[in-house]
């Protein structure tokens, strides 16, 4: 009795620090602080850092990983950890899109076909997860399956299509001086945030992530939710695949693997973005806005390191350190808030 009274008193009379800890805002403060530090260091040491062109580069670099990470944020928020099959879904989708484009179907049909493939892949994984399969193991298996399918379909070859094609506006076009892919990133970020904040579906995502038992008791099963969020994540993967394919007018299953990109494997980069942005991996807390900021943050650090001429080793190391740092801060903050209860 007295314990609960004390607890109530603490809840009503929260101090500033308590509130920081309780709302997990400490992490955001940390992130903003780090961002400022990186920014100032970048400004002071790299001469080309503070140019408009460089900012555009940073955001454009953040866009592809950012869009995928926004999709994954839904999965994470709903308490289903993360999907290890993000890059493999993208690999299958990029093959699907390029094959369709090269065999003469227009952009619209190819787009819809690719989205269809993504929805099927997402729904299948979501159904297995929703039935109670562990998300990590299910998507690990799905990753092998999807990647194998993509390789089998393309015969492990590069699929390319001729240059004047219907998708060029998405890949290389720009609007008001901003690349279209950047605009897409901003639009997706805003709409995802609106969906999470102002729709029933968004609130259900938070509810199921924060307390699955409560969600079940109020009639929100994880089964349908898992399917929905996995489809969202897959669609975002497919969109990134299409945008990337439109940029380079070709496709190969390894485009998103670590052998191709310099800064590591796409799936891990996406998970890193979600984590560094300050979303709770256990679900129920976070937002896509944070994910977008995380993407821009990682991209800024990467950009600064590139300007200083670092190789890929230190850059991958930096991202790894950022993830581990964010995990540790998050866990410590959570322990702090647990101790209050």
């Amino acid at each position, binding site marked *: 009795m007295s314990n609960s009274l004390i607890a109530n008193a603490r809840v009503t009379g929260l101090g500033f620090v308590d509130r920081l800890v309780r709302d997990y805002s400490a992490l955001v403060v940390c992130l903003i602080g780090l961002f400022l530090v990186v920014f100032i260091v970048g400004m002071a040491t790299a001469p080309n850092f503070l140019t408009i062109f460089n900012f555009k580069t940073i955001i454009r670099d953040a866009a592809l990983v950012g869009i995928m990470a926004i999709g994954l944020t839904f999965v994470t928020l709903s308490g289903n950890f993360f999907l290890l099959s993000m890059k493999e879904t993208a690999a299958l989708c990029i093959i699907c899109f390029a094959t369709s484009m090269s065999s003469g179907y227009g952009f619209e049909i190819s787009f819809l076909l690719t989205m269809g493939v993504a929805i099927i892949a997402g729904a299948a994984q979501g159904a297995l997860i929703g039935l109670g399969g562990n998300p990590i193991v299910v998507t690990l298996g799905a990753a092998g399956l999807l990647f194998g399918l993509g390789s089998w379909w393309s015969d492990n070859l590069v699929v390319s299509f001729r240059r004047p094609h219907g998708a060029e506006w998405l890949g290389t076009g720009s609007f008001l001086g901003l690349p279209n892919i950047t605009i897409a990133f901003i639009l997706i970020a805003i709409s995802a945030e609106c969906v999470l904040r102002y729709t029933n579906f968004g609130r259900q995502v938070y509810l199921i992530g924060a307390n699955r038992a409560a969600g079940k008791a109020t009639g929100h099963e994880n089964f349908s939710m898992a399917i929905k969020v996995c489809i969202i994540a897959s669609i975002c993967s497919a969109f990134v695949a299409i945008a990337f394919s439109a940029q380079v007018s070709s496709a190969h299953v390894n485009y998103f693997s670590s052998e191709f990109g310099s800064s590591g494997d796409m799936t891990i980069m996406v998970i890193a973005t979600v984590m560094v942005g300050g979303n709770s991996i256990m679900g129920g807390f976070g937002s896509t806005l944070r994910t977008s900021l995380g993407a821009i943050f990682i991209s800024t650090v990467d950009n600064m390191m590139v300007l200083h001429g670092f190789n890929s080793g230190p850059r991958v190391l930096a991202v*790894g350190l950022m993830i581990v740092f964010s*995990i540790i801060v998050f866990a410590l903050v959570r322990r702090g808030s647990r101790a209050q209860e």
Partner: protein
Amino acid sequence: MSRIKNWVVENHDLAFAILLAVCVYCYFAFTNDLFATHRTTFAVMERFAVLGLVGLALTLCIIAGEIDLSIGSNAALAAVIVVRFTDSLGAVTALLIAVAISTTIGIIQGYFIAYLRVRAIVLTVGTLMLLRGVALFAAEEKTVMLTDFRVPDFITTKMFGYFSPASILVIFMFILVGIFMNYTRFGREIYAIGGARKEALAAGVNLKRPMIIVFAISGLCAGLGGVIIGLRSGTAQALGLQYLLLAGTVAAFIGGVSILGGKGGVIGAAIGTLTVNFLNTGLVFNVTPAFMVQLYLGVLLMVVIMFQTGSRIFDENQRRRQIISDVDARRGPLLARRQTGPP
């Protein structure tokens, strides 16, 4: 006969794994003349040397209710270190350094998982990236190579028909870990924190100790696996070996672990790994491209997970029905008495 039947009923997971292994072996033995030969058995054992270690490590992690995603990166780091330092320090010293580093990484991971009370997947996805960065650093972003090829020759020497020094070491490791898991208190603690963590903690198990032991063994196995791969091929890549995670997980799940933890064992891990190796070797014999192997492994993992999830749902329904019928049975006489009224 009845003894066999009892054994099968008691260890149905293991029986299923053995059946699957025999089926896969027989399929390839009948479809390909070259498969059931002494040389192929040697090749299978050579694969077993690496994948067995990873399967063993993942089996232990899953028994403890966690999963170590950083196993491929850890192995790649060990491979890079051993290949880089073999020329200057000698194979044995380089091997010891690499394995020591991997084990230390495992210990640190285990400590942080227990101390921060985070799920292992959360931390190990971070260390996956971190260790890859360290490996790139250690390899200076190149493919490192040995110059002296006496070591790879020694490691692949044929002994007793089917074995090489590497596979003998791995079999020895399996026996050691098996004894540790089954006959020591620490091993039982690992089962306890996987199967019923709250109860184990309430009973006085310190979460740190089993967690550190599990991840230390996992790091040791990953390091040893990486060392064997690195020394056997004489080259190492910082970004390589990422396929180990999928293959090892498939092996662990075929071997009968449950994602809920607390189930499975070392024998299962060995049989699961052998099944994956039969599949892998057999597919290579039938000239299947590498990506198809990945596809088959993915399908296999999905099927096993579907099977497990299905049986869990079935069990839950059964239990619910049991409870309802129990309640009905208890309420039956009560209702009857109420209807007839008090005597």
